[in-house]
């Protein structure tokens, strides 16, 4: 008989796996209400540190070619596929879904990465435009990532909801601080391990486990966060007001479905800015 190896569930900040700065953990139970694990409980200072690394990683990620970003997103799908069994087991333990349902959720998560990987070099082809103007100018609108995104993943989904929250943000070159579901955080930490081994530059995706209400106001009022996705929050109205104070882009709760194998182009565009260039034409 050998001793069981217990896992320490930690945060994912700047490509590393630190414990919470506060040293706090909280208990996660399985679907039967039995103790499953102690998970790191992120504090406001973990939020602060995440924003700093997300900001410094963002320009490099946005500067990578869309083709390169697509490859990396596809690589995430590959790595996720390789960990399928672990994800299935974790989903079943956490939510009590049967094997078929759990496999379907992992399928959706993988397919969603592939779907988003395909969009990296097509966003501008579809959503950019050559505008007709009354003057001797080329007038071109292109889409740029908005910057640092803070996002609260849906509380009722362990994996696919988180994937459909992260992927639409990073596909265009944003970096993200994602707060996982509070009661279903195990897959989030495993997803972080997948991201860490997928050539994704450190800091582009940061995943925090903990209480959304505790962290929400710090992210909504943070002047260095450009957009906030309120899907998994319970005090969305209050956070919308805080976000309005500093002109953040806001994705309101319930705007998009997060359960499918495909996302939404509008969701991607919600986290982008339109840049219009006037270029003189020859006479």
């Amino acid at each position, binding site marked *: 008989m050998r001793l069981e190896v217990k896992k320490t569930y930690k945060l994912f900040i700047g490509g590393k796996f630190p414990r919470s700065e506060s040293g706090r953990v909280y208990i996660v139970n399985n679907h039967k209400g039995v103790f499953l694990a102690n998970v790191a409980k992120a504090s406001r200072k973990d939020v*602060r540190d995440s*924003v700093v690394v997300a*900001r410094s990683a963002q320009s490099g990620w946005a500067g990578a070619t869309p083709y390169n970003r697509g490859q990396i997103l596809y690589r995430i799908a590959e790595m996720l596929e390789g960990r399928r069994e672990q994800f299935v087991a974790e989903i079943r333990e956490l939510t009590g879904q049967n094997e078929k349902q759990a496999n379907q959720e992992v399928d959706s998560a993988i397919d969603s990465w592939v779907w988003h990987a395909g969009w990296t070099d097509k966003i501008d082809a579809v959503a950019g435009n050559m505008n007709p103007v009354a003057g001797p100018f080329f007038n071109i609108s292109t889409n740029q990532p908005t910057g640092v995104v803070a996002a609260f993943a849906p509380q009722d989904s362990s994996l696919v909801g988180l994937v459909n929250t992260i992927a639409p943000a990073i596909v265009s070159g944003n970096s993200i601080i994602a707060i996982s579901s509070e009661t279903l955080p195990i897959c989030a930490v495993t997803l972080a391990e997948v991201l860490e081994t997928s050539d994704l530059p450190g800091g582009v995706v940061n995943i925090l486990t903990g209480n959304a209400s505790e962290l929400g106001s*710090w992210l909504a*009022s*943070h*002047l*260095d*966060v450009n957009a906030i996705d309120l899907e998994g929050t319970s005090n969305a109205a209050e956070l919308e007001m805080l976000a309005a104070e500093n002109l953040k882009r806001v994705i309101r709760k319930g705007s998009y479905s997060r359960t499918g194998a495909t996302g939404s182009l509008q969701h991607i565009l919600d986290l982008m800015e339109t840049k219009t260039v006037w270029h003189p034409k020859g006479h």
Partner: protein
Amino acid sequence: MPTIDPEAVVGSRITNQSLSRWLHSLPGVDKVGLEARTASLGTRSIKTASKAWALDMAIQMMDLTTLEGADTKERVRSLCLKAITPDPTDLTTPQPAAICVYGDMVKHAKEALGKNKIHVAAVATAFPSGRASLPVKIADTKDAVNAGADEIDMVIDRGAFLSGNYLEVYKQILAVKAACLRKDGTRAHLKVILETGELETYDNIRRASYLAMLAGPDFIKTSTGKVSVNATLPITLLMLQAVKDWFDQTKIQIGVKPAGGIRTAKDAIKYLVVVKETAGEEWLTPKYFRFGASSLLNDVLMQRQKLTTGHYSGRDYVSVD
């Protein structure tokens, strides 16, 4: 101001031999103890009112620096304007102690600062390498002083120091100090840069500190910011011990300036804790402690904004430099 008799301190006539004997009789540095001491001081938590005080003090102790080959008159001017109004959204923000530039930029800095009390510090003596003959170093210093520099940051000759030629180093500091005299009889403040990153050992840093102090500067400074190892907390602690011991022995108070690599408000506060605990509160003033830094100011301003507004600030809310 009290003066010292170097011969009395060294214990004989100043020769390379006597300097060598004196410096090598200094106690060796306990590396493990020094680093453990700084690590434990670095964990101290400074909050709320103390933090607000520390942030304001850090700004007042700052020598806002631009020392790039690509410096222009305009860049120096914009740095000066930043020093005059560090945070336009909060006019209670204090001003830094000085602007630190190359000698040829002194006149532009002076012009931009106008009647403000902010000093202009100039690096001189073939900064950062210090590889030039003494007449060139003296001319470099005089040029900056004549252009109106309030403070001179000189580098020591590390080559001479490392090869044991202490007398040469000592004489050069004396010569540069003499060159700091203005026509009206006042003297520009002198900071002596030891370039600790090139001195290899803590023992050497202690010796270099004492050798520099013997020549009577106003400050000893860690680094130029141009080599891979710049100011660190242990080195600063070591130099603070040196100035404190020197004060106890001679009643002459000399300042310390760590420079290079201090980028965050958190780091700056750690330095202030080390100053308070090593040299004492007499050093906790811009007159006796300075930070040589360029990007530090923005981080301190962001932390200051966080304290006054209650929410985190971002780089878009402080000036680009």
